[in-house]
Structures are given as C-alpha cells and as structure tokens.
C-alpha cells in the first residue's frame, strides 16, 4: 500500500470538504495536487536528507582520501562514485578535496569519478523523484548517475590528463597525520538534524514555487503540449534539454516538480532525466571553482564527457521505456 494514502485522504477532505471546492473541478484538482505534493515531498526530503547526512558523518574528506588512495583504477572508480552518492558538491570544499585527493596519490580518473558523482547524484533530486515518480525512477536516476560517474572517470583516467591539472597542485605538500575527528553518536545525530533543517530552509521556497507551477500545468496545460515538440520522435530534444539545464544550477528543488508535470504533458522520461542531471551536474559556478585547479582544456574535456554521458542516458531511457 502507498504509505502516503492517509495523506491523500486528509488532503481530499481538506480541499473538497473544508474548502468546499468541487471534486473533479480544475481548480480543486490543482489545489489538491499542490497541497498533497508539497506535504509529501517535504516529508520525503526530511527523511532522505537526514539519512544521507547521517551516513555522511562517517565519510569526512580525510577518510575518503584514505579509502581511495592506493586503489586500482576501475574498482577505485566504483568506490569513488559510491562515496560520491552520499556527498554533495559544495563550493567550499571542492578545491581542497581535489587537491587533497591528487596529492595523496589517488589516480586522477578516480578523483574525477568522485567529482562527477558528488553533484550528479543529488539527494534532493532523488527525494523529489521518489515523491513524484515513485522509488523505481529514483533508483534509476541514482543507478544511471553512478554508471556515468564510473565510466566517465575511467575514460578520463585513461586519457592521461595529469599535465592539464594546474601545476601548483602537485607542489603542495600536506602535513600528514591529521587525526580523524572522533564523533559521538549524539553529535552525528545533531549534526544531521542541523543539516536537514538548513537544506530544507534553503530549498523550501523554490520547492513551493516549483510545485505551484507544476500544479498549474497539471490543471491547465493541454494534454499533448510537449508530445510534438519534445516527444521521442525529436532527436534534438535530449541535447537541447541538457543545454537548457546548464544555467539552472542549484534549483533542482524548483525544477523537478515542474518537469514532473511536463512529463504528464508528453515529455519523455529520458529527456526529463537528462535535463535534471544537467541541472545538478553541469553548473557554471562549479566550473568556475574547478578552474582554480584545472587548466581550461581539462575543464572542457571533463564537462564534455559528463554532458555526453547524460545525453546517452537520456536516449537510453527514451528508448527502453
């Protein structure tokens, strides 16, 4: 049974009895959709962000470094991508992390796997996909993001791009033996709770706006709005969706509810998935920050390979689903 069934009953009662909107009317449907989705997604977000933050307290960068050094390629790529699922891309830590990994002898390709997975597989996006499309789509998103990170990192590693890392990175010598900070169970939980609150506070407004626009599209937009312009028959739809996604960074919370309504109106799931991945993984601020440690050529190669991977996933899902 759908665990959110009681919530739907409650929202039905709220909208159709308390607000006395007519059942089956467009406005009633849109408001019902808006309230139900908002509450459901907020619950899922809180639970998932808390769980991921808690796991993350065990994956401090200093520990990640230890886990990844002296690992063979490919297995290293797989471990790095897995760790990347639980860690976000944070503008504060991307550069020190990159330098730290390279300095401790983690192969460049393995470092890239981690660097790709961290923003690409985003827990906020996963929670929203779960809420709006069900757990299968959420799992599909995580699994395909993981495959892109492993393969793209492996390819980048094989291209021997070490010379395109900024030279000063190799000159940095880190002091060794910084002790891992011991954390009590109580600290881990309070840290995760704090993280959950701060993320929800940050995305709350975007989320509500996104769901409101989604509810509007759900209620008012014609059924086959996108079937012709962005349907499976249009081969350019996937790359264009990826291009549109690039400038929309950090707004995954607002974009996904809108995209979910567009799928009802004929946007294929693969195209939608590619778009969402582009929103989270290919961002301009990320590029600017990484430019500090990578020469332009490497940055371009890196972004191109990730973009190609995302486009490939888009086509693949349009084809199999």
């Amino acid at each position, binding site marked *: 049974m759908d665990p959110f069934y009681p919530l739907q009953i409650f929202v039905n009662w709220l909208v159709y009895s308390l607000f006395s909107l007519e059942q089956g009317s467009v406005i009633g449907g849109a408001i019902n959709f808006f309230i139900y989705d908002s509450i459901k997604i907020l619950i899922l977000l809180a639970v998932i962000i808390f769980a991921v933050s808690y796991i993350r307290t065990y994956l401090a960068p*200093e520990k990640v470094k230890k886990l990844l050094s002296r690992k063979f390629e490919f297995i290293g790529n797989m471990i790095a991508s897995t760790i990347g699922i639980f860690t976000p891309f944070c*503008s*504060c830590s991307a550069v*020190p992390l990159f330098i730290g990994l390279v300095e401790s002898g983690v192969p460049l390709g393995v470092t890239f796997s981690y660097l790709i997975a961290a923003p690409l597989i985003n827990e906020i996006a996963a929670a929203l996909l779960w809420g709006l499309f069900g757990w299968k789509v959420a799992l599909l998103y995580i699994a395909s993001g993981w495959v892109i990170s492993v393969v793209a990192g492996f390819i980048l590693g094989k291209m021997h791009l070490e010379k395109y890392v900024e030279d000063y990175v190799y000159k940095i010598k*880190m002091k060794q033996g*910084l002790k891992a900070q011991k954390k009590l169970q109580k600290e881990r939980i309070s*840290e995760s709770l704090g993280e959950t609150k701060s993320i929800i506070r940050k995305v709350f407004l975007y989320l509500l706006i996104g769901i409101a626009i989604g509810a509007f599209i759900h209620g008012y937009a014609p059924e086959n709005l996108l079937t012709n312009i962005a349907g499976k028959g249009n081969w350019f739809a996937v790359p264009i969706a990826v291009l549109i996604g690039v400038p929309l960074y950090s707004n995954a919370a607002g974009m996904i509810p809108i995209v979910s309504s567009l799928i009802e109106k004929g946007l294929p799931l693969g195209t939608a998935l590619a778009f969402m991945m582009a929103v989270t993984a290919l961002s301009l601020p990320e590029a600017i920050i990484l430019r500090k440690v990578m020469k332009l050529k490497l940055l371009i190669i890196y972004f191109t390979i990730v973009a190609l991977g995302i486009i490939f996933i888009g086509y693949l899902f349009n084809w199999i689903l």
Partner: protein
Amino acid sequence: MKIKILGSGCPNCKVLEANTKKAVEDMKIKADIEKVTDIAKIMEYGVMSTPALVVNEKVVSYGRVLSPEEIKKFLK
C-alpha cells in the same frame, strides 16, 4: 595566542570567524586572529574540509562551524 581561521571565503568561514571573535572577547584573552584564504597554505595544514580552526599552529577542528561555546574549550 595565535588563532587562524582556514577557509576560502565561503559563508561558513565567515560565521566561524565571527564566532571566534566572540569567544575571544567573552574570555577577555589576548589573541591574534588571522584569516587564511590561500588554498595552498590551507592544504599545508593537512585540512581538506573547511572551515578549520588552528590554535597555536595546531589544527583543533575542521569541516565544522563551531559555536562560540565550543571554541572557548579550545582556547583554554
């Protein structure tokens, strides 16, 4: 006492700096607070997650924004 805040200038680092200043004022101790933003220098301390707090050249905390109360423990 020499205190250093390591961080590349992200919002968290500024909060840590403000909290450190508050802790120092509350305890009425003499301390030099220096902000280290150069990434190469930050890395030399072995720190990979910023912001970090360094007291007398020893890394006492990293990857967390400490509250003034928590900072006081390291300044005793």
